[in-house]
């Protein structure tokens, strides 16, 4: 068993992602815009209730928002477009004709697609929202640096786990697309689900007390919420190990159950037509 085909699949999707540079730029502008609006909303809320003991400081909420915006395209918003299209057209048969492990083959493509979209945006946004914002005097609104060197290291490990969790959730959407012969349902359900549960819409630490710990235990928290908390050095119930443990648990569970489900799907798949 060689790793070569999976690297190839990764590189291919990465290249295809980078081909759409204009989309990266347009997405960046949109995300800056939404980021700025959220920041103003947080500023207004925090200034009108200075006595409330919020679970995040305003500065933390702003940094959280910037990182969430940078990693918007890292979220599992639906299936991999190429797989959705292939499911619809029937070209998916060729994926089954390759001498490769189908899970790893699609996973490497899905991961490349997520990272190929997210990494260039994240770097640009980090530069604009971080040092540049600080330079023009918007220091209070900018992206704060990591809490410490250890926090930065932990965050990197956690972000990598998060990317794999996201790609594994995309795999579930891929399986659903293969079963329903259409990518549309996965976007319709996947996008609101991911935006809500990842903390993109409202940071998970700002939810009411009763929901906060529950939300930390679902898989979408592992994509960016947990890494961002580690980056900012925020306390996490159960500590750092629990946080990484939750991520590892979901990565393992999504993979094991997803593989089982995919094998069942493939063995029952009835590709239509000639």
């Amino acid at each position, binding site marked *: 068993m*060689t790793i*070569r*085909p999976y*690297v*190839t699949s990764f590189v*291919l999707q990465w290249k*295809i992602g980078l*081909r759409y540079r204009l989309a990266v730029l347009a997405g960046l502008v949109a995300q800056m815009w939404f980021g700025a609006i959220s920041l103003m909303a947080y500023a207004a809320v925090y200034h009108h209730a200075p006595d409330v003991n919020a679970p995040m400081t305003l500065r933390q909420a702003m940094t959280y928002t910037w990182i969430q915006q940078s990693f918007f395209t890292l979220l599992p918003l639906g299936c991999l477009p190429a797989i959705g299209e292939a499911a619809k*057209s*029937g*070209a998916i*048969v*060729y994926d*089954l*004709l*390759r*001498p*490769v*492990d189908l899970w790893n083959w699609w996973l490497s493509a899905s991961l490349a697609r997520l990272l190929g979209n997210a990494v260039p945006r994240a770097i640009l946004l980090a530069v604009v929202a971080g040092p540049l914002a600080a330079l023009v005097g918007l220091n209070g609104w900018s992206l704060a640096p990591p809490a410490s060197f250890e926090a930065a290291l932990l965050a990197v490990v956690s972000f990598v786990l998060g990317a794999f969790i996201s790609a594994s959730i995309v795999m579930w959407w891929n399986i659903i697309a293969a079963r329903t012969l259409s990518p549309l349902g996965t976007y319709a359900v996947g996008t609101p689900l991911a935006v809500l549960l990842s903390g993109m819409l409202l940071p998970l630490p700002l939810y009411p007390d009763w929901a906060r710990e529950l939300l930390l235990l679902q898989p979408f928290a592992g994509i960016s919420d947990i890494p961002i908390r580690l980056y900012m050095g925020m306390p996490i119930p159960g500590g750092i190990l629990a946080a990484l443990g939750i991520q590892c648990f979901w990565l393992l569970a999504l993979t094991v159950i997803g593989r089982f489900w995919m094998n069942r799907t493939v*063995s*029952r*798949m*009835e*590709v239509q*037509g*000639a």
Partner: protein
Amino acid sequence: MKTAAAIEVRDLRKTYQVRDGGSWRGKTREITALDGISFTVPAGEIAGFIGPNGAGKSTAIKILSGILRPTSGTVRVGDLVPWENRIAHVARIGVVFGQRTQLWWDLSVAEGLALLRDIYSVEPERFRRNRDRLAEALDLNGIMDQSVRQLSLGQRMRAEIAAALIHDPDVVILDEPTIGLDAPSKLAVRAFVRDLRRERGTTVLLTTHDMHDIEALADRVIVIGHGRILADSPFEALQATTLSERILEADFTGPPPDLFLPDGAVETERGTRCVTITFDPQRLPAPALVAHLSKLPGLGDLRIGRPAIEEIITRFYADHAS
């Protein structure tokens, strides 16, 4: 080195569950796509697989490719059961689905082939040799650097065939490889498949609706209809019986007169100004039939052709029913 692979199919059955009405409330119903088919293709043979739409050809091809699991029956390709050893099996076969593309629209032909080299773990030396040989034989040198979306249908099909053969498969499955192609492209594809078998001893299973493909390539013809094998015989045998038949259409300026056809010809259809005659050229040569008809009053145009595959199959049913 190369192992002589052959295809062996025994009592293969496949039923699909279909839901009527398309809603979750509809009743499920079983559709039998394959109703116990058996055949063998020895290594190095080109077998033609023909039958009308919905006969079960595609289902059989998908099972042989390892994509689909049958309801019952056994299949061996080489020494492997396709759906049980999917990865090992697909590494040794090459498949072309004429109506679908396996190359990547965004990549050039050369990039696509390089990608397949990595997927099939073809050693660099062997890859270069195969690529150059295929580019030469399929006339791809001029289009190697074009992206697949820019290719014409004929160019694309030649590239598709190269893509299916870059890893030296022992068994090649060609599903409608000439569909939609113009005459020169069809000839090029046929010549290539013939050479492939002669030079490499590749086993080929070919489905087509074009009898000329069968005539040019197949050693053996397997006719399938309603999920059953209707005939399995050497091409010459089939040609001598069923495929030899010709159809003549005669136009008249007015209502056609009585024809008084000689032995070996039968009137099969009569319109207001046209008559269709089916005849066996071995019993009644075409010139003799034409000479007979030309004596009739009011004869206009004459056209001679082959019956469509669908008609041949229909007659197979009639023969089998009796």
